[in-house]
C-alpha cells in the first residue's frame, strides 16, 4: 500500500526524495520504495524519517 502521508510530509517540507534520503542515510530508491509501499522499513529507519520530517511515527506510518 502506498504511503501517501510520507510523500505529502516530504513535499510539505519541500524536500526531494534524494534530499530526504541523504538526511536519513539511505539511497533515494529506498525512500521511493517506502513511498510506493514496496518496502517495509525497520523501526530505526522509521524513527530517522519521522525525526527528519518533524513528525511522529503514528502520523507517518500508522494505518
Amino acid at each position, binding site marked *: 500500500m502506498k504511503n501517501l502521508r510520507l510523500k505529502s510530509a516530504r513535499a510539505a517540507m519541500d524536500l*526531494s*526524495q*534524494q534530499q530526504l*534520503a541523504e538526511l536519513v*542515510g*539511505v*539511497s*533515494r*530508491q*529506498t525512500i*521511493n*520504495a517506502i513511498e510506493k509501499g514496496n*518496502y517495509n*522499513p*525497520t523501526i*530505526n*529507519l522509521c524513527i530517522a524519517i519521522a525525526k527528519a520530517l518533524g513528525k511522529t511515527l503514528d502520523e507517518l506510518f500508522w494505518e
Partner: protein
Amino acid sequence: MDMAYWFLFFVLLTIAILIISIKIKICRGDYDERQEALHGKGYKSGFFAILVFFVLYISASAGYEKLHEYGFLAIVAGIFLGCSVASLYFIMHDTFFAVKQKPAAYLILTVILAVFNLIPPVEDFIRGVNSYDFISGHRLISLLCGVMFLVFTGALITKMLGSRREAEE
C-alpha cells in the same frame, strides 16, 4: 619466466589489489537496510543459476560425450552465468551500488570491459577463424565476458533512465 610463475604473480597481485581496495573502502560501500536485505536474495539467485546450469551440463554430457572436451569452458560459462544473474538482480533492484556510489562511473567501466572483451572474438570472426580454434583459443570466453558486460551496460542505462524519471516525479 615460466608461465606458472606469471600465473602465481597475477593471482597474488589480484589478492593484493582486493585487500587494499577493501581496506580503503573502494569495493566495500555503505549499503542501506533495504539493499542489504536484497543482497541475500541476489546471491541466492546467482547460486541457483549456477546449480541449474551444471545439472543441465552434466545431464547433457552424459548423453553427448563430446561435451566432456569443453569442461573448462562450461565451468567458466557457469561462473559467468551466476555472476550475471546475481549482478542483474542487484542492478534491477537498485542494490548494486552503495548509497554514495555513482552508477555513471561504473557505466564507463562496463563499456570499456565490454569493448575490450568483444574486440578479440570480432577480430576472429572477421579473419574467418574456424569454430574449433575459436573455442580452443578461449575466444568464446572473451565473447561470453563481453556479452555479459554488454548486458550489464544495458541494464545500468535502463535503470539510470528509470531512476532519473522517478526522481523528477
